[in-house]
């Protein structure tokens, strides 16, 4: 009796896991298949193409004016990298300030941060566009980077503060007694112990620009300046379906490196989030 119910439970469990695995792998496999399919059309696409070809991958790097994939790639990596660095620097400072100091306005600022992260930044689209024109920075990657960093600050300050709160205060105090300045305590004690959360912030910083379609489409107006999301979206949408196979190739080249980094960092990510999340 006990054995039978166990058997049923395990069979159902494996059944669920296998069905889910197929549902997850199928779209990804389909895309990989599509990228090797000859021609542009997908009507005759199959997961394992009969005459696989690398033509779409070559096309991406031919550097044609309407499809500067290499340029988009460089733009995206550059924007993501600097957003990541900026976010790490600003958020570790604000996190430290909020976690370790009881200064005037602290409570109110924390509440304001909480509210700001609720209002989507792009609901202020018009303003950002006007701002770009006034500063004469339409198509400027640096403006975009600053906007991303600004948008990342409230949410990630919360995460960072929560994580730093879990580092015992005694460590700071003994460092202070030994004569270390605030800055030194920060660099030599707090920062090394916050590594898991720094990884989370780094990842947020790197992926936000890659996931953003709205801000970048408002500010970047020429094909040359595009990031990968806008570029690939336009590639799919210009002639619906007509360049889908090329898109598939482009999508794979961006997904594989990111997926690998994500899978490698996931342990950090989980420990960082659960500690910061529960301690708030």
């Amino acid at each position, binding site marked *: 009796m006990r054995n039978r119910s166990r058997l049923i439970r*395990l069979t159902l*469990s494996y059944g*669920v*896991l296998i069905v*889910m695995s197929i549902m*997850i792998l199928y*779209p*990804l496999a389909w895309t990989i298949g*599509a990228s090797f399919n000859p021609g542009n059309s*997908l*009507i005759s*696409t199959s997961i394992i193409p009969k005459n696989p070809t690398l033509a779409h991958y070559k096309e991406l790097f031919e550097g044609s004016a309407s499809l500067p994939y290499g340029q988009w790639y460089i733009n995206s990596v550059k924007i993501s990298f600097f957003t990541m660095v900026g976010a790490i620097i*600003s*958020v570790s400072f604000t996190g430290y*300030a909020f976690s370790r*100091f009881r*200064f005037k306005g602290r*409570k109110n600022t924390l*509440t304001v941060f909480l*509210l*700001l992260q*609720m*209002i*989507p*930044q*792009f*609901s*202020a*689209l*018009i*303003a950002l566009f*006007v*701002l770009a024109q006034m500063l004469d920075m339409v198509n400027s990657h640096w403006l975009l980077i*600053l*906007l991303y960093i*600004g*948008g990342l*600050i*409230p949410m990630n*300050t*919360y995460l960072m*503060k*929560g994580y730093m709160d879990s580092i015992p205060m005694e460590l700071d105090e003994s460092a202070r007694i030994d004569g270390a300045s605030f800055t030194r305590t920060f660099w030599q004690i707090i920062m090394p112990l916050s590594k898991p959360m720094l990884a989370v912030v780094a990842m947020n910083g790197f*992926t936000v620009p890659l*996931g953003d*379609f709205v801000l970048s489409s408002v500010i970047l107006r020429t094909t040359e300046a595009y990031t990968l999301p806008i570029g*690939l*979206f336009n590639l*799919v949408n210009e002639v*619906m*379906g007509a360049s889908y196979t090329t*898109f598939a190739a482009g999508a794979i080249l*961006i997904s594989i490196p*990111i*997926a690998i980094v994500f*899978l490698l960092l*996931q342990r950090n990510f989980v420990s960082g*989030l*659960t500690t910061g999340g*529960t301690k708030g």
Partner: protein
Amino acid sequence: MQHRKVALLLSIIPGFGQFYHRQWLKGLLFLLITVSFFVAFKDLLNMGLWGIVTLGTELPRDNSIFLLAEGLIALIVIFLGLIVYYLNLRDAYKTGIMRDNKQTLYTLRQQYQHVLFKGYPYLISGPAFLLLLFAVVFPILFSFAIAFTNYDLYNSPPAKLVEWVGFSTFKEIFTVDIWRSTFFDVLAWTVVWTIVASTLQVALGIFLAVVVNQKEIRFKKLFRTILVLPWAVPGFVTILIFAGLFNDSFGAVNNDILAALGIDAIPWLTDPNWARFALIMMQGWLGFPYIFLVTTGVLQSIPEDLYEAATIDGASAFSKFRHITMPMILLSISPIIITQFTFNFNNFNIIYLFNAGGPAVPDSTAGGTDILVSWIYKLTMQSSQYALAAALTIMLSVVVVSIALWQFRKSSTFKEGA
């Protein structure tokens, strides 16, 4: 008269209160900041304040929107100036109290160290605050201001001036028939979408985490890696892939899967209800791995003896799940669950990249799957209804913020954190 009052009165001109305390250097610093503030921002303040009140009077000289932006920047600058002014008053008053109590005043060196000590958190977070002000606060204020003007396709610079119109745009949302019906249609779908999609992804994530975490399951690592793949691949890529898979004419869902099962092709992109169904399924696919990951972390941290004790007491597998596993999970990840709801409420990407909010609906400016944020995007970028879009933004923000505040007030997270 007490020293504190004299000092406070003199401080109306920044620095003079400090001079009264014979703190020459500090007073000079305050005075200098004040003078340079007015020298540097004289034009901006003058232009900005005039501009934000009138929004321009003469064409083609004035561009209302630029004037409005300058005006807001002027207001922000004034706000920052008032903070310094307040500090000046407070400093003079505080030192006054010390003199009244016949305490010895701080020496310059002590003051310097005091400022360094007290000011340290402000110093290190200052740059981040300035960036936040410029990148987040200013744009939001600007949008809010636009909502009270008549800025749209027909009233837009440089050809036309824009005017303040008060609450009339808000009124129109509820009185003009086409806007009202669109608004409530979009709002209803937004609410359904947020609740159903978020619940689906949370439930699926917790369920699968529990399934994989069973002791007897083999290949745990393999299953975990496969299950977090949707989280590891960039979201915009997967959404665009799905847009292709669900495509009515060449998509594999219709051509391969449904055809193999003998089901007729389903108009995924052209029928609003099927499009909505597809979107919810996709969000489930995209969103569950995150919950799965976090829940797995929690499950691994539940001490084994809890379960052993329950087994000795004769608890069934189900009651162990209900009384141990579930409460532990919910306790640790409830803040993360809340963020899933706010995320989906604002989940622009999936709606727009899948089908651009389509299919089009007759007599409506919003498509069949548009949620509030994607409708706002379309109103701004495609039909140039700036004032309307901004008014909707305000209403949306008020709703989100009040729900969030209510939620966070309930949860202990907020009390403990702030």
